[in-house]
């Protein structure tokens, strides 16, 4: 059944309208919640989600059920726990959460309520990107609807469980998507990330145990509860479980977003769903999951969209939205565009990121302007090492280095052509 194969998007209609509460309920909406809250203990819900094999859709792919199970549930000093929804989606090339937020808000709400129940949080915040005005409207509306039907608020479905969901809209900074920076933003502070450990699970929002989950992650939860672990584990094709929103943007015939089984081959996404390259363009490479993932090449088309498979091919699944590089777009200029983004979005806390990214931009600009030197390429590779994982305070800068390091590896001749002056005129973009 189509519906069962595409649980996340089954209510999303092509006409851009959104699913009302009635629409949502008519396809089994809030049944997962009913089951969880009336039949299962919080610990059981955690176990279900763990057993289903759901991994975080925010980029890092951490087991969601495991994350929940690490929250201190009994410690007396922590009466308060929080659930925070990461709806900050700001990674260039990523456009998956907006769809879920705008078109089926109840699916997210149901996921939130179940998750909150699982960790016994009584307040949940949706940290929504400030630019997502339509999503904000629809969420507000959905919150009212859910409240009036007893899915939210006090004594939810007569279970004795209470939950308040608060919609918080941000004011624009990519770093707010980093979970600990997000907490600072939510507390009304500058969104510098926090040191880990302590992890938010132990000391998060206002120092209280806090779970942070991505929108898409939580949207999976109601279906796991409603249809069961076995069903969920039957959805995927490869090593990971469930379905995922995959997308493609750039010069493909049919850019878009599709819910597909985990483990779908990249070739299928680009060639079938996205319709292949536009006439007159050839595929040069792609970023598999947003701006902060390593380039992959046409030779990688048969890699499947699984966390580990993509890691093995030298990149990351990230957000699962492909950015396509065609043969007439200059990879050096594309990397410059990405690095300008990262340099601008650096929070300014740690040295390598704050000062290394602008230097990266300067070097790339010099190179493109014909003022580069061969040793600049060494400087760039040096920076990719220096700003690598573990060396900076958070994962922003290492993410920023992924497209650069792979571009230096795969498209080195494009960099060198600028420096040696043998640059055939590229299509100006």
């Amino acid at each position, binding site marked *: 059944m189509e519906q069962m194969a595409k649980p996340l998007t089954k209510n999303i209609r092509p006409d851009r309208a959104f699913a009302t509460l009635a629409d949502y309920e008519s396809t089994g909406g809030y049944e997962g919640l009913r089951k969880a809250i009336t039949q299962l203990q919080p610990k059981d819900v955690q176990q279900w989600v763990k057993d289903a094999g759901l991994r975080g859709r925010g980029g890092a792919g951490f087991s969601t059920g495991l994350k929940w199970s690490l929250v201190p549930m009994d410690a007396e000093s922590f009466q308060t726990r929080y659930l925070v929804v990461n709806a900050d989606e700001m990674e260039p090339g*990523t*456009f998956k959460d907006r769809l879920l937020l705008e078109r089926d808000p109840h699916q997210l709400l149901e996921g939130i309520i179940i998750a909150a129940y699982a960790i016994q949080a009584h307040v949940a915040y949706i940290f929504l990107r400030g630019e997502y005005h339509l999503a904000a409207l629809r969420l507000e509306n959905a919150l009212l609807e859910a409240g009036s039907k007893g899915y939210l608020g006090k004594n939810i479905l007569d279970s004795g469980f209470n939950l308040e969901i608060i919609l918080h809209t941000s004011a624009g900074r990519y770093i707010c998507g980093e979970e600990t920076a997000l907490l600072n933003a939510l507390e*009304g502070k500058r969104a510098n990330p926090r040191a880990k450990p302590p992890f938010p699970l132990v000391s998060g929002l206002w120092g209280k145990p806090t779970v942070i989950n991505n929108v898409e992650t939580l949207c999976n939860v109601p279906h796991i509860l409603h249809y069961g672990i076995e069903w969920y584990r039957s959805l995927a094709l490869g090593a990971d479980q469930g379905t995922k929103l995959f997308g493609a*943007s750039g010069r493909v015939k049919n*850019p878009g977003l599709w819910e597909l089984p985990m483990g779908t081959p990249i070739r299928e996404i680009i060639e079938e769903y996205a319709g292949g390259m536009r006439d007159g363009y050839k595929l040069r490479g792609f970023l598999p999951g947003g701006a902060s993932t390593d380039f992959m090449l046409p030779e990688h088309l048969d890699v499947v969209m699984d966390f580990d498979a993509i890691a093995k091919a030298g990149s990351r699944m990230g957000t699962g939205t492909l950015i396509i590089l065609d043969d007439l777009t200059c990879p050096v200029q594309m990397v410059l565009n990405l690095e300008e983004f990262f340099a601008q979005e650096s929070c300014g806390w740690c040295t390598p990121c704050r000062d290394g990214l602008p230097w990266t931009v300067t070097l790339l600009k010099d190179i493109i302007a014909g003022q580069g030197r061969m040793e600049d390429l060494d400087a760039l590779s040096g920076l990719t090492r220096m700003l690598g994982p573990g060396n900076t305070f958070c994962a922003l800068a290492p993410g920023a280095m992924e497209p650069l390091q792979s571009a230096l590896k795969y498209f080195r001749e494009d960099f060198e052509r600028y420096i040696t002056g043998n640059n055939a005129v590229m299509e100006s973009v």
Partner: protein
Amino acid sequence: MNIHTEKPDFEGLSPAEIQEINAEFSHYEDKTAVSIEALKIVQKHRGWVSDECLVAVAGLLDISTAQLEGVATFYNLIYRQPVGKTVIHYCNSVTCWMLGAEQVRERLCRHLNVELGEMSADGEYTILPIVCLGACDHAPVVMVGNELRQDISDDAVNEILRR
């Protein structure tokens, strides 16, 4: 020995603004958390956050002006300078860049005869870049006020500015 003035510090905000900000307090463990929302409320009413308003909001939130300014200057969508009635944000991130964001920007700026960040002579518009608006499958995109506009062609730019 503190010199206490009789006037409340948050004088200068409208009753509506104060009410909206006060209403936010119940959502958080402390007042500081309302910082960003409060600035956005002021901005909703006035288009931008003047120094006077910043001081007033800080007073209402019981934090120092400097602390609030530290927050205000961190975030992208808080304007500490006047902007046009409608802010047009054009996405300059990777996919839009690939598919013509620069042309969109040029056309917008030329049309209004402004540089980025400037207010058009009639005070109607300000053009600003913005990072990926999450609609890459419809690049290039712009946000006109609060409204997302996708697949922006030359005609679409003209249509936006004609309104």
